[in-house]
């Protein structure tokens, strides 16, 4: 039983990484209605920017704020420059655009900062948290930050006019336009916010997985899986999905014999698909009824 409890705790600790990323995934899904494959690379690039700022002598939290602001602006710029012209193109063409963006950011980051693995500082320290060896203060801090972002997002969407406008633009663009909402800019804003959330996720994840251009590859896959599991329409679901995926993954590795690191991912994904077959809108998502 103690092994079980420990594994669950360790699962929550890794799950926090996925929850962070899943939150960014849901954010962009809310704004543009599909998954952005370049999300992880955007977060990675932001993390490198913050690392560079710290190398230039800016203290951690200063770099943190600057990076979030930079990512927000960059997210909007990417939408305006690259994806607004594609708004009328088929969805699959947009997906190809995400893959192109992925290749560009990955390659440019590799050229600027090369592919060697770098240490990344944490503001929370890495001593054991509350005397437990399985969860460090950094991981506890990461869970705290994720939950904080979740609460902020909730208040933003519930109680601000811009939040309301974004929800309107996402659910019924035409009616939203009729009441005077600039839906095109709402999409740009969604990109900006997703990039900003992604940058926070990147800066939280980097101390755990270390900083390098391919650091987000695995994390993004789990982030997608977490978001889909929790329900793509619900930020709360995404965070819960993140923790659940983390726990799943750890328990599978512990209790099913012969599962090495390599089979963890396929088995976790298979479990998620099983859940989806039973509950197609995800655990916390709302079902979408289509009109014929």
């Amino acid at each position: 039983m103690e092994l079980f409890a420990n594994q669950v705790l360790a699962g929550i600790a890794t799950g926090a990484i996925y929850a962070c990323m899943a939150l960014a995934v849901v954010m962009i899904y809310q704004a543009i209605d599909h998954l952005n494959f370049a999300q992880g690379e955007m977060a990675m690039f932001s993390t490198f920017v913050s690392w560079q700022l710290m190398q230039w002598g800016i203290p951690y939290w200063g770099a943190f704020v600057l990076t979030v602001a930079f990512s927000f602006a960059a997210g909007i710029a990417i939408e305006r420059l690259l994806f607004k012209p594609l708004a009328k193109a088929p969805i699959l063409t947009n997906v190809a655009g995400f893959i192109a963006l992925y290749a560009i950011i990955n390659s440019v980051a590799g050229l600027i900062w090369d592919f060697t693995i770098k240490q990344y500082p944490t503001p929370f320290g890495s001593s054991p948290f509350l005397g437990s060896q399985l969860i460090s203060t950094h991981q506890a801090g990461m869970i705290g930050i994720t939950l904080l972002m979740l609460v902020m997002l909730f208040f933003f969407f519930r109680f601000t006019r811009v939040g309301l406008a974004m929800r309107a633009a996402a659910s019924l663009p035409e009616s939203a336009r009729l009441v005077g909402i600039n839906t095109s800019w709402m999409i740009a804003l969604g990109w900006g916010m997703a990039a900003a959330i992604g940058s926070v996720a990147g800066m939280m994840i980097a101390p755990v997985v270390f900083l390098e251009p391919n650091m987000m590859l695995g994390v993004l896959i789990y982030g997608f899986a977490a978001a889909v599991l929790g329900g793509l329409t619900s930020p709360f679901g995404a965070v819960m999905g993140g923790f659940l995926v983390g726990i799943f993954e750890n328990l599978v590795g512990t209790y099913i014999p012969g599962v090495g690191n390599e089979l963890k991912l396929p088995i976790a994904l298979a479990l998620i698909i099983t859940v989806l077959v039973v509950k197609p809108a995800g655990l916390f998502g709302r079902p979408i009824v289509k009109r014929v």
Partner: protein
Amino acid sequence: MSTAEDIVTEAPAVEAVPKRAMTLGFGTSLVVLAVLILVPLFVKNFIIFQLTMLLIYALAVLALNILTGGSGQFSLGQSAFYAVGAYTSAILMEHVGMNYALTLPIAGIVCFGFGFLFGQPALRLSGVYLALATFALATAMPQLLKLGYFEHWTGGVQGLVVTKPDAPELLQAMASWFHKSISQDMWLYYFTLAVGIAIYIASVNLLRSRSGRAFMAIRDNEIAASAMGVDVALYKTLAFGVSAGITGVAGGLGAIAVQFVAPDGYTITLAIQLFLGMVVGGVGWLPGSIVGSAFIIFVPNIAESFSKGLSGAVFGVLLFLVIFLVPHGARQVAIVAQQLIGKLKKN
């Protein structure tokens, strides 16, 4: 984030391509065919090998096109079917000693069954969810092939080496009358071309048949299709099966051409490449498959020749250029060209 159910009137994710717009005219087809037959006579062996790969990937893109452009289902798992086809051929050739040409139909049938079965749970999923499910299949496949349990057959991490077939003796004898010889590469190219043409014709006919119309009805509106009496579940899984079967044949051909199968040759990267090939060629336009395949084979090389360090960025920029200029892929180019020719004829 209300908890109320939303009612959304959604356009189908994949555009409706009328079935006549899915193929080339007869004259144009003959010209393309003539080019494909004549080119290998004038180029070096390495380029012939690349052209063979071009045809093989074109087949795999065609298979994805039938699934996505035809029945409206996404798949990021094509690399898994390709891998199963490749391994089936390789194992039959190396362990059983079967003739390479005979292994292809078996690879196709095995993959058809595999795809058909995979289509069953996929029935409940669509859009991003289906993308995730197929993605899971693609990531699982290399790991499954590495498992110690199958190692006797699959060769584990090391993979299997496949012998390249010679041209049949009859053909070699005929060529020697003209003081020429048929290299292995050249023979394999023509062999692939023949298989490819057969599959292309079969696919065109499939899409024009009753089943093809059922696919397209499902793509355009699933509920309306079922109301008209289309067995949605059957045709959706059938589309998966057919697509997987063709991909399997392509995989088998690929194994013979590369002379080697190993788990790491069939990762998610391959599935993404095939997806890009489909978009560049035009979703739902079968002849576009060969254009898309050319894009995924040659453009990375071109990008590398620009700059080694930035090859990824150059590839990305080129891809952006293509989708900015022609968001509907090569199909758009073909339509514009057709209209131009139509105008010229009128004048």
